[in-house]
């Protein structure tokens, strides 16, 4: 029981750490280049 609660708490903390990075990011980059052969 105690272990389950610990694991749940750990999952919540990890989720809080990962979520902002997953929600805010660069999705795509497009470049127009010159002098390419």
């Amino acid at each position, binding site marked *: 029981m105690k272990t389950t609660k610990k694991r749940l708490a750990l999952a919540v903390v990890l989720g809080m750490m990962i979520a902002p990075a997953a*929600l805010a*990011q*660069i999705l795509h980059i*497009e*470049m*127009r*280049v010159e*002098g*390419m052969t």
Partner: protein
Amino acid sequence: MKQHLGRQSGVQKVEVSLLDGKVDITPKEDGQIEPAGLLKATYDSGVSVAEMDITARGKIVKDASGNLVLQVEPNRSFALVPNDLAKALETFAGTSTRLTIRGQLYKKPAGKKKAESSPPLKLAILEVQSKE
């Protein structure tokens, strides 16, 4: 050039169109991609970048000087060029609204044969695709 770019951190896929000089870069989801590094890698491969457009999701915040900034990660942000579209987003500054924005991060200065390899990157908003 494709190999140079593919070796940069945070790059998942690079597609090059020789016909129209377009390079499409798909970032990894790890958020490690660095646009300035991509510009440098392109120059290092002997090719000149005319324009760089990005699509990014993030929050609008104000920096210490009160200028609008798109924060795409807690430790990465792009200053916004103060155009009409950026002004319209001022109401979102400091809120938790996440915006998906397409904008121009770099354009080769007119008249210069060789552009600077590490110019200051400012994001000129072209389109606001979504607000969450």
